[in-house]
């Protein structure tokens, strides 16, 4: 089976900073591929190349087996790659429905009296949110009144509704509490079951192990290979993230508490 998206030997330099030094990665339909790494490892840079925000200094991006060049986020979106960024791209003062459709508002009527079809927008928003397991007070509820996890879910539901084949989530759980994290993880699971390939970025090994099918660890711009579910445990992943050695030392002095 060809991968939905494959990244081959990606390098990215920012001036004299080498953010990525040859990283390969792929994601298949219906799987959740976790990209792990400590802060500054290059995870965000990597997925920004996948979503067309940056162009790689070197390396290839393949969609369904054929090479592509994304010169803008729009191009990546058109190829079915949707990204939910760390800062979510949600506007707290606007309603859930207006946020959901932002940039892709359905319209009705004829020009110049064409209007935003709010009734249709509201109806679909409520239905899609329900599918993701969130019951809204109403489609006009402001996003600002939602919890962090619910906001993540709105962003994910939006990406899925607009035909994402690959969904990239950049640290969706890093700012959430226990219960909200569980909600987001179960949303990821639901999305995966719909046949969408999920790229889940996190620095939390336990969150990754909860939903991941495969795991790729980034460390200082380099990858230490990809592991299948069942072939690694939390300790091994933790070790790879920190770069082996030092972590083992640290951990022994902390008595295995992290």
């Amino acid at each position, binding site marked *: 089976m060809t991968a939905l998206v494959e990244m081959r030997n990606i390098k990215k330099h920012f001036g004299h900073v080498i953010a990525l030094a040859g990283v390969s990665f792929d994601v298949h339909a219906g799987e959740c591929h976790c990209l792990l790494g400590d802060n500054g490892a290059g995870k965000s840079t990597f997925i920004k190349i996948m979503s067309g925000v940056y162009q790689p200094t070197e390396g290839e991006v393949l969609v369904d087996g054929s090479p592509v060049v994304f010169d803008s*986020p*729009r191009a990546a*979106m058109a190829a079915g790659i949707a990204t939910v*960024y760390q*800062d*979510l*791209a*949600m*506007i*707290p*003062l*606007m309603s859930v429905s*207006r946020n959901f*459709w*932002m*940039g*892709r*508002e359905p*319209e009705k009527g004829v020009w110049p009296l*064409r*209007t*935003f079809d*709010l009734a249709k927008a509201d109806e679909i928003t409520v239905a899609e949110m*329900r*599918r993701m*397991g*969130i*019951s809204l*007070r109403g489609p006009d509820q*402001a996003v*600002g*009144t*939602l*919890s962090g996890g619910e906001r993540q879910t709105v962003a994910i539901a939006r990406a899925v509704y607009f035909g994402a084949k690959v969904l990239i989530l950049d640290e969706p759980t890093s700012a959430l509490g226990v219960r909200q994290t*569980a*909600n987001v*993880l*179960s949303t990821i*699971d*639901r999305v995966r079951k719909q046949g969408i390939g999920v790229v889940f970025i996190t620095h939390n090994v336990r969150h990754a192990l*909860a*939903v991941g099918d495969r795991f790729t660890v980034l460390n200082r711009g380099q990858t230490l290979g990809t592991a299948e579910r069942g072939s690694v445990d939390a300790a091994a992943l933790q070790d790879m993230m920190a770069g082996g050695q030092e972590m083992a030392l640290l951990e022994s002095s902390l008595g295995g508490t992290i």
Partner: protein
Amino acid sequence: MTDASPDVRRDERIKPVSPFRRALIRPELGGICGTILVFLLFAAIAGDSGMFAAEGVMNWTVVSAQFMVIAVGACLLMIAGEFDLSTGSMIGFAGVMMAILAIHFSLPLWLAIILTFAFCVLVGAVNGWLVIRTGLPSFIVTLAFLYILRGLTIWGAVYFTRQTIIGGLNEKTAGDWLAPLFGGKVLTGLFTWMGEAGWIATFTRGNRAGQPVIDGVPMLIVWAIVLVIFGHWLLTRTKFGNWIFASGGDAQAARYVGVPVNRVKILMFMLSAFCACVFATCQVMEFGSASADRGLLKEFEAIICVVIGGALLTGGYGSVIGAALGAIIFGVVQQGLFFANAESSLFRVFLGVILLTAVIMNTYIRRIITGER
């Protein structure tokens, strides 16, 4: 986890919101309360001064309509996340440019009006373009234009005509096809009929004896109503309106999902300039003259109307209807104090108090909307 049933999560800690509280969190609320309050107040202190007779009503309606015209532009621009401090100078500039073109260069009035509109809207676009390109706050960029345009206005008036007040436009209006759109009156028949029927007062002496004291609705009021309806429709009922909210709410977030934020903002700067031109043209037609000092402080008055109307200074939230109510409050207070024979300097005190109250109330309302965060 893997077999999570699609149960619907509901946070039992979120209290159901009563319809009353829901009505409360509308941007127009402050404007509605304020309008009622102001009318009650002046009915009490100036009820027998003629303020609510036909002539008095027309007096404060015209003033309110003036504020409304520029408030619509300022409102949509503020919701899109920007300010235009050049509105007042633009009003002066547009009037003088029009007059110089029509009087000094002897262009037909309609051509002078069209050229003026085109140039001013272009200046609006330059304002917007500079804000986008430099990334500077629009406050600074348009402050520069506040001075540039005012300076050019005075210099131009003196250079071409050796005076700062340019008259003689009344003769040019006769027979012009475009001028009545700004200086004409509508519903004259209705007012004549109302005068005859004794519903409104008529002149008892002079050469206009028997004619009603109000002979029609000035086009300025028609412009105000049309702009308010158009602005409200655009903002709440169209895709572009959603983009206005999005651009002001969080420009970066809007860009991520493909909203053409730069285009939205530049268009709103152009609309603001257009509104200033409408104001200027109506005023020139009414007085038959242009003056280099017109429009002083109008940019702040427009912003005050918008803020009284419930818009947030930080952008992303507000209402055109609210701004229109803000304009009514402004107009009624300004003219009402005059009718009530109050010290006119008190107007400023009153204004400051209203402004402060409105901003405090808006901040509170925003906290409710965003869940006290």
